[in-house]
């Protein structure tokens, strides 16, 4: 079962549909006791960091997510879900994240840069990862975001994209991986990445 975390915001349904289409069985998780049967967990996301983290707290989901990650099973965050993996964010005030990947989330900045970053953009892979299997260099993925993660450790940055300079597009550490774009909206290459994740054993 591929768990899809529901915190009452975001595009959980389209992620669930993508997982289903790819032949896997998605299970929406919104309670702390729902994690045991999961082989994989996806944190989807559209929304605001400062609303999402308190919501995770209210629903008492923070510890179950951390326990899931500690168990070695694969965990994927997409868009806001990726940012939640980081140590902290300054969106809507300074808030702590899940801290699974060292680094922080800040607003996209640059001379004359139009924020949010919306549309298709190229992925520049910095290091190999099982979720990249079968995806060629220079393929486009669909981004919608105003904030971006900056990794503390260079080896956690798996791929970047160009938007007024390099912007983190894929981050990962051990069994945890996060993508800034929306794979569920990125056509064939995005679906391939979700499929790769669902087939991944969490080892790098």
């Amino acid at each position, binding site marked *: 079962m591929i768990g899809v975390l529901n915190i009452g915001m975001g595009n959980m349904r389209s992620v669930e549909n993508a997982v*289903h289409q*790819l*032949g896997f069985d998605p299970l929406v998780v919104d309670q702390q006791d729902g994690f045991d049967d999961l082989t994989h967990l996806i944190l989807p996301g559209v929304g605001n960091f400062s609303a999402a983290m308190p919501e995770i707290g209210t629903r008492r989901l923070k510890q179950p997510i951390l326990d899931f990650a500690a168990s070695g099973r694969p965990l994927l965050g997409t868009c806001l879900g990726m940012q939640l993996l980081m140590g902290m964010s300054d969106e809507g005030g300074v808030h702590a994240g899940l801290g699974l990947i060292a680094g922080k989330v800040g607003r996209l900045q640059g001379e004359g840069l139009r924020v949010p970053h919306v549309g298709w953009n190229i992925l520049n892979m910095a290091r190999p990862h099982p979720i990249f299997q079968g995806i060629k260099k220079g393929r486009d993925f669909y981004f919608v975001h105003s904030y971006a993660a900056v990794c503390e450790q260079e080896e956690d940055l798996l791929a970047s994209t160009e938007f007024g300079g390099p912007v983190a597009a894929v981050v990962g550490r051990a069994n945890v991986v996060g993508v800034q774009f929306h794979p569920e909206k990125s056509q064939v290459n995005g679906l391939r990445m979700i499929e790769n994740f669902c087939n991944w054993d969490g080892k790098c």
Partner: protein
Amino acid sequence: MLKHCTACNLPETYETIEFDESGVCNICRQKEFKDQAIDWAGRLEQLGMLIEEYRGKYDYDCIVPFSGGKDSTFTLHYLMKEFKIKPLVVQFNHGFMRQGLLKNNERTFRKLGVDVVSFRPNWQLVKRLMLEALVRKGDFCWHCHTGIYSYPMHVALQHKVPLLFWGEPSSEYTAYYDYRDDEIEEVDEEKFNRSTNLGITAEDMAGMISGDFDFDPRDFRPFSYPPMRELKKLKYRSVCLGSYIPWDVKKQVKLIQDELGWQGDQVEGIPWSEYPYEKIECHLQGVRDYIKYLKRGYGRVTQMTALDLRNGRISPEKARRLIDDHEGRKPHSLPIFLDYVGLTEEEFNQIVAKTVVPPYQPDFNAKYSPQTSDFENWYREPEGNIGPRRRVVPIVNSGGR
């Protein structure tokens, strides 16, 4: 006057064609890449790994979709001989298979020793589909394009056989899948929607004919691609053998002739002595190629000579002569086809005229091509069954009850 590739002579009306500064087309350029840059030894190794991944785990090692033409016959023979696989042969019979082809099939199946599933769709529906596709796209073969590519996928699901081998890669002819991308051509729903189904899904087609034709929604199943989830659950792979070995039609035809006694045939509008092996499957091939000529100003001979020119197997002068002597002639199968779809030739011409690709300007008064030797055996629609069976829609009297 159409612009043509300076190397292979394909015209600007050819689908997916582009010309570079020296006037050479992209199909020629991708063929150069095929010859020089693809690591065919590595590809062959990949083929071996793919086959071993699936071998012995299912009722069959793979499915080979099969018409019995040169490409599928070679594919079946090659996989059985080189890799000793146990295949399930799946045939979509469009309804126009010629005697020579059926004899070839018989020889091939008996000699190789294979299990065969053959399927033939509802003829009354097929007639209506041909008419609709002709009117909308100037291509009456929708039922055949979609059936050939979707029906074997349904069989894969029914028999739980996840691996399918198609034959010739489309990169040999068009640039939908460019050899220069250096990828395996996956024969999947993306390809189906991109270049197979004329932009018309089975669901679309059902809606298009629902006004005047009675059908059961299940009639459309053979023409519809199965749900992605089911194929993914099966862990399917559907690929072209020609992504793993360099496709060489002439060499392969020689091989199946020698090993299987495969025989060529006369095809309308094609020089019989020069190209007896191409498109022998269907007695409506002449109509298909004639329409292509009317729409785009080239036909099968141009395609065949283009392939030979790229391989340096024919002189440009001889290619020119073959094209001038054979291409664009009116086929004797035309009146037979017109009775299937219930059109006069005048109506047919008007329909085709609307789908002509500029800047070509067609001439509808071509001479007839020679009759093939099996012409008399081709199925004729009897009086009373001419044209699709269309419902007479009652005029609803809305006043009073």
